[in-house]
């Protein structure tokens, strides 16, 4: 978080985290498509030649004023592939909130669990208590024929009590709802911390 009183800006960072190919970049691409161009930056993607995220994707959104402040939301994704662990950790640096994008396929349960565990370890390494960081869990790919249902996914991931959004990112479903919920969570947290 970074508040600039000179510019009356509240800068917040939200990181989309999750296993490889769970749909993190697709989330940002769909947000980019649906948001008013005057209120967003360009979508920056650092990709490999195989079109996979190498370091991060980045998109900035500028919300309308709240209490005289303009919230600027910086969205980042992490690279999902296992060998980019060090890069993933770096992208979490300074995060004010996290969207965990889980893959609803039964074959990806282990990957979801491992990614969730690693995310919490990285947050702790920065001195951030993951239980106190605003977090939204998105169960993506709900259109798969064998997609696991929300209660099962919640149980397997151990995320009872956290806000959950079901999504089909490729169709844009659940994308904005996820963003809305995490944005609200992060700004409410700022209010709490500044009170």
């Amino acid at each position: 978080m970074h508040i600039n009183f000179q510019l009356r800006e509240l800068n917040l960072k939200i990181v989309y985290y999750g296993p490889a190919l769970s749909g993190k970049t697709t989330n940002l691409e769909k947000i980019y498509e649906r948001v008013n161009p005057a209120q967003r930056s360009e979508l920056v993607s650092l990709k490999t030649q195989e079109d996979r995220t190498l370091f991060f994707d980045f998109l900035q959104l500028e919300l309308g004023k709240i209490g005289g402040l303009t919230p600027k939301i910086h969205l980042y994704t992490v690279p999902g592939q296992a060998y980019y662990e060090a890069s993933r950790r770096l992208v979490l640096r300074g995060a004010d909130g996290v969207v965990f994008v889980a893959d609803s396929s039964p074959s990806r349960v282990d990957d979801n669990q491992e990614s969730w565990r690693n995310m919490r370890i990285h947050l702790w390494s920065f001195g951030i208590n993951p239980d106190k960081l605003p977090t939204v869990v998105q169960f993506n790919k709900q259109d798969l024929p064998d997609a696991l249902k929300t209660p099962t996914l919640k149980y397997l991931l151990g995320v009872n009590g956290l806000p959950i959004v079901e999504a089909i990112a490729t169709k844009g479903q659940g994308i904005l709802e996820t963003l809305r919920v995490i944005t609200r969570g992060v700004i409410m947290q700022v209010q709490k911390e500044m009170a």
Partner: protein
Amino acid sequence: MSSYPTPENNVTLRTGITIFPSQAKAMDQVISELAERSPAAFILVTDVSGHLVTSKGDSDKRHLLALAALVAGDLAASQEIARMTGEYKSCQLVLREGEKVNTFIAEAGLFLVVFVLVARDVPLGWARILIQEAAHQIAEIISTPSDDVSSLKIGLDDENLQDLIGEAFDTLLKE
């Protein structure tokens, strides 16, 4: 000269900074002097999370936002490489030599990063000294408590905050 926080084992990485008007003004003064003395064609200051703080020189606003994110990511990667190879030191400086311009990325304390673009004919040693000096001054400015804190309020104390966030969010969406 007062001291500012230094990284310990690269653990303290979360930012949570507030920039008050007097600090913003002092920072602008430092980068104006740097731009004049080096001379630098373009200077950008971002926080370590990639949020743009200020800039000097011509650039498209959209490019600025992307550049701030990339500069912060670049420094973070360089710091991590240095740490993994046992060569970490504070006040890290990354230099890229180009055909026409050289770029420097310098740590300015724990929270800020300075990106400077200078012409190729500016001596590297000269540029490096000035940039590190400016980075140090910026780190000092941001770590020095401002005297106007009590007069500033964040403005998020409205009891209808949830509704206000919803309305602010709705402005994002295309008609």
